[in-house]
């Protein structure tokens, strides 16, 4: 697991010393360049020293983490360098009506203090922006939005906000002081018993649902935002990223991914802001339940990109794998929340709460009902992978043309009584192979290739191999060339069946069409390749056109939302 040790460390001391020394120099060079603000140099260094490139990148990632923290430190201390930090020093500190007593938490965008409200003589919690007067306008706007939004809510499961104010241009608000611990502190001591976890989650769901009813999304539900008081009541706090559901305001215009990826819904992580809804909070509730039951969030990886890819592409490990003591029904509930397509999740936090309550009462849960219509609908609908087709749309339209041309040419040669197996063989291997290389090169230029695309590429490649092997098979069976042509349709049918499973159930249509063409091609051998070419091209052209248009539409959307 120690990725950062040198490949040859330990085997030969000499070599690894030389290797390390080179690497050390490169690292220092790259870091110096970064400090001077010339990040480009890294690429050059990596190209010049491919043997070090991989580790260099890993190490520089760590270095940049440190650098970022250093920057942060510098920024924070810049404004208050003269008077030392206001928020660290000289407590108790009077802030209008409040006497700040001690710092009790730091996170989100603020620092939380235990405080006494002098006029009413009561203990409260006061949250302030920690960066003080330096707070950016955006930060301040968000802070006030947070306070205003939460102040509207009145629910036992939501930490109530009392008062919003500003002192020396430093905004703060006071809220009820709740003694207890956060769920993440609780989880850090080990997974919760199922009943305990579910009991808490029911409360949290009711609170979140109440907020949803009032037009507020939380957007950043995670264990550290859930306080458990001494009586076991859960309180949701830090609606820091909350935003009115119907508000199309400026706050998150910048496209920043707000929230904590480990608990975020995929549509949120992917930055599809328009698609973030109450169901995204339902997803996060599922993540919270998952981590309460298993002690870890549904997705975790060494790097963010990996975590993000996991989140976007993979199914989470079923909770029972991590904790076999979890009941099957409960697992169903969790997994239903964690469905990537929004419409397969619970449609509201209240529904989730009901199902959890049903589980507690040993009543049948709804997540279990695998209704037939549901199953069929699920078969036919697009999976969350289908969006990769947007990148493939145009390419598939070209692909259909290439396929058509190759088939027509083959049939033409056949009509001209060309007998040489080699010509056909070369056309179908070298010809189509060249196109495959071109296709893949273009695709790679468009950006990183996803796991699912590699799967599809494999299926495609295997179908090409199968087709190429048909020629020697024909020869060995002493068949005429192209006599096995109907097998092309069978192979294509299989390829589309697999695509249907991975991408969208609509491809079952293509699969059926291709399978149906095989006997037809066998019945009219003179026209076999024309039949295959036309039907095959159609099978690619239609979805290609659809997804190409979809991708154009999305690009237009993006341009529109990017306008200031």
């Amino acid at each position, binding site marked *: 697991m120690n990725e950062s040790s040198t490949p040859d460390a330990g085997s030969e001391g000499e070599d690894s010393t030389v290797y390390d020394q080179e690497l050390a120099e490169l*690292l220092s060079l790259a870091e110096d360049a970064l400090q001077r603000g010339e990040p480009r140099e890294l690429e050059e260094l990596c190209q010049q020293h491919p043997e070090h490139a991989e580790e260099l990148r890993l190490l520089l990632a760590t270095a940049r983490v440190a650098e970022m923290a250093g920057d942060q430190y510098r920024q924070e201390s810049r404004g208050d360098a003269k008077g030392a930090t206001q928020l660290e020093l000289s407590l108790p500190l009077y802030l209008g009506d409040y006497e700040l007593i001690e710092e009790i938490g730091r996170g989100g965008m603020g620092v939380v203090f235990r405080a006494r409200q002098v006029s009413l003589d009561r203990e409260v919690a006061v949250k302030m922006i920690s960066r003080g007067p330096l707070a950016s306008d955006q930060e301040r706007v968000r802070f006030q939005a947070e306070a205003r939004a939460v102040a509207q809510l009145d629910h036992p499961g939501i930490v109530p906000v009392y008062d919003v104010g500003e002192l020396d241009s430093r905004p703060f608000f006071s809220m009820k002081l709740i003694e207890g611990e*956060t769920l993440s502190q609780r989880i850090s001591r080990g997974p919760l018993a199922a009943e305990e976890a579910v009991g808490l989650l029911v409360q949290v769901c009711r609170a979140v649902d109440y907020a949803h009813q009032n037009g507020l999304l939380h957007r950043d539900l995670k264990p550290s935002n859930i306080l458990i008081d001494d009586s076991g009541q859960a309180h949701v706090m830090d609606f820091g990223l909350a935003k009115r559901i119907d508000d199309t305001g400026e706050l998150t215009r910048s496209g920043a991914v707000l929230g904590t990826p480990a608990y975020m819904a995929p549509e949120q992580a992917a930055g599809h802001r328009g698609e973030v809804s109450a169901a995204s909070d339902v997803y996060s509730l599922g993540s919270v339940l998952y981590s309460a039951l298993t002690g870890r969030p549904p997705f975790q990886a060494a790097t963010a990109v990996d975590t993000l890819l996991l989140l976007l592409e993979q199914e989470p490990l079923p909770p029972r794998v991590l904790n076999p003591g979890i009941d099957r029904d409960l697992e169903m509930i969790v997994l239903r929340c964690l469905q990537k397509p929004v419409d397969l999740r619970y449609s509201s936090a209240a529904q989730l709460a009901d199902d959890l309550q049903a589980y507690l009462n040993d009543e049948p849960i709804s997540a279990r009902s695998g209704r037939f219509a549901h199953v069929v609908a699920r078969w036919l609908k697009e999976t969350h992978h289908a969006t990769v087709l947007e990148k493939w749309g145009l390419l598939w339209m070209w692909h259909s043309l290439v396929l058509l041309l190759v088939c027509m040419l083959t049939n033409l040669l056949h009509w001209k009584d060309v007998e040489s197996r080699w010509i056909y063989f070369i056309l179908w291997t070298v010809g189509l192979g060249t196109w495959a290389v071109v296709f893949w090169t273009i695709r790679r230029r468009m950006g990183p290739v996803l796991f699912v695309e590699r799967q599809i590429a494999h299926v495609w490649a295997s179908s090409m191999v199968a087709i190429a092997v048909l020629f020697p098979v024909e020869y060995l069976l002493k068949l005429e060339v192209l006599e096995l042509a109907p097998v092309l349709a069978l192979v294509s049918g299989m390829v589309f069946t697999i695509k249907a499973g991975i991408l969208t159930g609509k491809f079952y249509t293509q699969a059926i069409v291709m399978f149906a063409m095989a006997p037809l091609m066998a019945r009219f051998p003179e026209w076999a390749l024309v039949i295959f070419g036309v039907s095959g091209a159609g099978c690619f052209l239609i979805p290609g056109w659809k997804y190409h248009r979809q991708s154009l539409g999305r690009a237009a959307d993006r341009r529109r939302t990017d306008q200031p």
Partner: protein
Amino acid sequence: MWPESEKTEELLGEAREGDAEAVNKLIERHQDAILRLVRMRLDRRIQPRVGVSDVVQDVFIEANRRLQKYLQDPVMPFHLWLRQIAKDRIIDAHRRHRVSKKRSVDREQPAHLPADMDHSSMALANQLVDGEVTPMAAATQRELAARVEQTIAELPEQDRDIVLMRHYEFLSNQEVAEALGLSQPAASMRYLRAIRRMRDLLLVEEEDSL
């Protein structure tokens, strides 16, 4: 972190000619940097007893006392010289208050921080690094910074020192080598080891805290 050197050289020249105002300016220019350095490295447990600003003041008093000698024989660039004094003053403060220098970095952390971190900081950091999700929420950055500082605090002394020099004081490899009295290859090697260890620690924490 350190003010640019041309102006410093100019002021040093004037100071050498006996311009008292230049000396003041020199000190003023470096005050913030020294303050940050001290705050970062002075053990938090003794901060109630020894104020950061007290140490900073000591640094400049000491610098003032030794300035003439330095002006006659500038053994190293001014800012390296100044931070050397600062480090001596910090070691001195630690010695006087009998704390090991071990955890001088836990600047502003509650005693039990990791439980509340959301395990994703390394991940977020990588995102930042990749420049894919550029404007990260300020809050998350702050959590990340706290996490990094926690990790730095866990590093062995030598590693911690070089990481702070590189990333909190923004010194170049050459300056680090000079300040530590090492050759440049040796300094870069030490940095490599520190970063490797830091990466391991960050990844381990990532796993442990889950």
